């Protein structure tokens, strides 16, 4: 065992010194150790804790929080099937079953020879080209039975991932409709030059005049956020780009980061110019690990062009640089304060607000957290002016919006529309017919039935971070809601009891209904849990967790009712079956040795 210990020491030393033994880099250190070792063995936790001068429990607490970090071996090949509602439509569970069978492995367990493990994970952001999976963190899209068979062969023959057909790993942009943003060709530095010609105050004024609002879902006015950060007391300010695109069904940020990285990084630099920030982070979700190298290269190009670093575009004192932090499979880190905690190398537990990040954010510094798309949009404002920007869209929602369209339609992909576009129009454009419902805004968003398709995408009507999942009339919306409820139960960070327990109870009720044990009384209980989640949760995750159920209960109630027994209550389990073991042990089979599932009407 000696050589292994030695090599672990060598790996640790290399990673720790690269990361300057900085405790805020803990998550990055853990991730990099795992990339080389395959998992994080307990002695590594001890060594990392000692090197960073942190309690070991803190290190293990962080390692245990993120679902892509493993404290036990997970096999040479770790296969994770994306399990979003849209992957379900495309038969991902069937493919997963096939793979488990071919590889002689049980879902969620490591094969006996330690070769492979197969499991599911939350939406990986490939909904327009699913079903998708991650193998050792790399995405494979457009899965078919044939492709799954080939993958099984490659795994069985222990072929290194670098020798797998590159075609597997191809991720398409699938841009179907371009508007102002996607049509812009940006000469790197051009937007920055325009803003710098105005000066920081006038540039900030321009952003405020544009009425640009956050594209991450909440829709806060960007100019107000920037100004608050600029005016907050403190020496060092921070710009964070939130690329933790975890909302099921969203993949627009992936496309921006793939094909428009300069827009995003220039937007961050524009934010730095307006606020006086010198430090920038891109928080990239772990599922997009494959984008790390191209993004690092884009950053390097910008540094070489004098667009990042000291004295940007030759202006003394305008210093700003960007570091990329990778997440590790935690949806809750998309919430800005949880994201900041994660950036600081901690568990992704949301903070109490206020103070808001613009006052006290990363390491207590005034911090702007903006969505990828929001930052890219600021480039448009710099290039074309606020008036031109605000002329598009609606009164309260200026500009355009990228939609990630997936599910039952002929042309899934990215569509850019001016705000105000109607659901009907979108459905027609993407070739969706016979539509039963559209889930807008992801699992925490809203479910629209056909009588609402005249409504429009805008903050004042149907707000969205960009997810747009289409379900035709053949689909069972109860199962869609159940998928989302399982998602929230899995992604609850566990910090507050109402959410940790409430999401699990909700999951149990949905499973009870799914197995045919449901009663009317359970629907009342679901509504009670919804009230509890809404009233007592610490952050938006718990607040929204019951939305998919509540909305479908209102709009698609028969999908629930047909699962109910016509009783006011039924147990979730089979009472008679519960006596089977005792019957076997006693050899009894008399009338008293049995129980009816429902009370006999005597």
């Amino acid at each position, binding site marked *: 065992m000696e050589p292994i210990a030695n090599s672990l020491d060598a790996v640790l030393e290399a990673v720790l010194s690269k990361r300057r033994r900085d405790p805020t880099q803990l998550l990055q250190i853990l991730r990099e150790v795992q990339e080389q070792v395959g998992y994080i063995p307990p002695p590594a936790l001890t060594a990392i804790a000692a090197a960073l001068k942190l309690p070991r429990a803190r290190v293990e607490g962080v390692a245990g929080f993120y679902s892509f970090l493993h404290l036990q071996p997970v096999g040479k090949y770790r296969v994770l099937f994306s399990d979003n509602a849209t992957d379900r439509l495309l038969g991902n569970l069937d493919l997963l079953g096939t793979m488990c069978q071919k590889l002689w492995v049980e879902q969620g367990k490591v094969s006996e020879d330690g070769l492979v493990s197969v499991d599911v994970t939350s939406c990986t952001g490939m909904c327009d080209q699913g079903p998708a999976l991650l193998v050792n963190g790399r995405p494979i899209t457009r899965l078919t039975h044939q492709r799954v068979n080939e993958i099984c062969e490659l795994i069985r023959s222990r072929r290194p991932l670098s020798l797998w057909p590159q075609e597997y790993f191809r991720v398409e942009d699938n841009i179907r409709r371009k508007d102002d943003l996607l049509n812009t060709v940006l000469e790197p530095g051009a937007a920055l030059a325009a803003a710098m010609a105005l000066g920081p105050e006038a540039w900030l004024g321009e952003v405020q005049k544009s009425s640009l609002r956050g594209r991450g879902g909440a829709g806060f006015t960007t100019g107000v956020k920037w100004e608050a950060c600029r005016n907050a007391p403190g020496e060092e300010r921070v710009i964070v780009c939130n690329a933790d695109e975890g909302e099921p069904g969203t993949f627009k940020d992936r496309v921006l980061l793939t094909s428009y990285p300069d827009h995003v990084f220039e937007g961050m630099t524009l934010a730095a110019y307006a606020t006086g920030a010198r430090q920038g982070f891109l928080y990239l979700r772990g599922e997009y690990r494959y984008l790390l190298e191209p993004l690092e290269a884009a950053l390097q190009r910008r540094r070489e062009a004098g667009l990042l670093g000291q004295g940007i575009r030759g202006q003394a004192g305008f210093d700003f640089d960007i570091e990329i932090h990778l997440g590790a499979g935690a949806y809750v880190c998309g919430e800005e304060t949880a994201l900041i905690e994660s950036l600081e190398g901690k568990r992704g537990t949301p903070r109490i607000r206020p103070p808001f990040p613009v006052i006290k954010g990363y390491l207590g510094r005034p911090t702007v957290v903006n969505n990828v798309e929001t930052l890219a949009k600021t480039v448009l404002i710099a290039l074309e002016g606020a008036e031109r920007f605000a002329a598009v869209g609606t009164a309260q929602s200026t500009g355009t919006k990228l939609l990630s369209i997936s599910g039952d339609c002929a042309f899934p992909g990215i569509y850019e529309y001016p705000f105000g576009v109607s659901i009907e129009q979108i459905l027609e454009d993407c070739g969706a017919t016979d539509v039963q419902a559209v889930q807008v805004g992801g699992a925490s968003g809203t479910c629209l039935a056909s009588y609402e398709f005249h409504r429009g995408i805008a903050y004042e009507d149907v707000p969205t971070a960009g997810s747009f999942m289409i379900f035709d009339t053949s689909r069972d919306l109860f199962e869609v809601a159940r998928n989302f409820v399982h998602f929230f139960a899995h992604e609850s960070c566990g910090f507050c009891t109402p959410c940790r327990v409430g999401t699990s109870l909700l999951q149990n009720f949905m499973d009870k209904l799914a197995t045919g044990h449901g009663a009317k009384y359970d629907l009342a209980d679901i509504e009670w849990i919804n009230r509890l989640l809404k009233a007592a949760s610490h952050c938006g995750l718990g607040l929204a967790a019951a939305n998919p159920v509540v909305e479908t209960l209102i709009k698609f109630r028969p999908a629930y009712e047909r699962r109910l027994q016509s009783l006011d*209550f039924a147990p979730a389990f089979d*009472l008679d079956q*519960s*006596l089977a*073991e005792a019957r076997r*042990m*006693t050899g*009894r089979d*008399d009338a008293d040795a049995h129980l009816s599932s429902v009370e006999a009407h005597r």
Partner: protein
Amino acid sequence: MIVSGRKLRVATTSLAGCFGCHMSFLDIDEHLLELVELVEFDRSPLTDIKHCGPCDIGIIEGGVCNAENVHVLREFRKHCKILIALGACAVTGGLPAQRNHLDVGQCLQEVYHTCIGVESLPGGQVPNDPELPLLLDKVHPIHEVVRVDYFIPGCPPSGEAIWKFLTDLIAGHTPRLSHPILRFD
């Protein structure tokens, strides 16, 4: 919920419990005299009535561990307008639910055959008299078997908590226990 012209009828029972909650109920001491002015008891260890008739309030101590518990609980649900889970075992399964981690068949095997100091029955038989209720494979809180209206946590809930809860209920208020009488230990 004062019903004009008659006293409220109350039934109580202990399922997979230790009677500790009933003991705590008796701890309301002199309030018992006030209580009998307001209610009369149907089936209860206090009356030794064997079966429950139509009642206003049913109070259940203990979780559900065997077939008989299921029958008793269903009888209470059928006859009581309001059903209350009293104490930790009724609310969560409590101490008896610790066996849920074990296989019930192996438990019986251990208790009647292999345990040191046990004299096995002839033929290695686990007792099988039809009078004996069969064990369920898991112990359940009562709300997993029937609909339950109110829950009073505590192991046991204090006499004070029980008195407050019942007087609220009898007076027609939604019962409300708050700190310090609401407790889970």
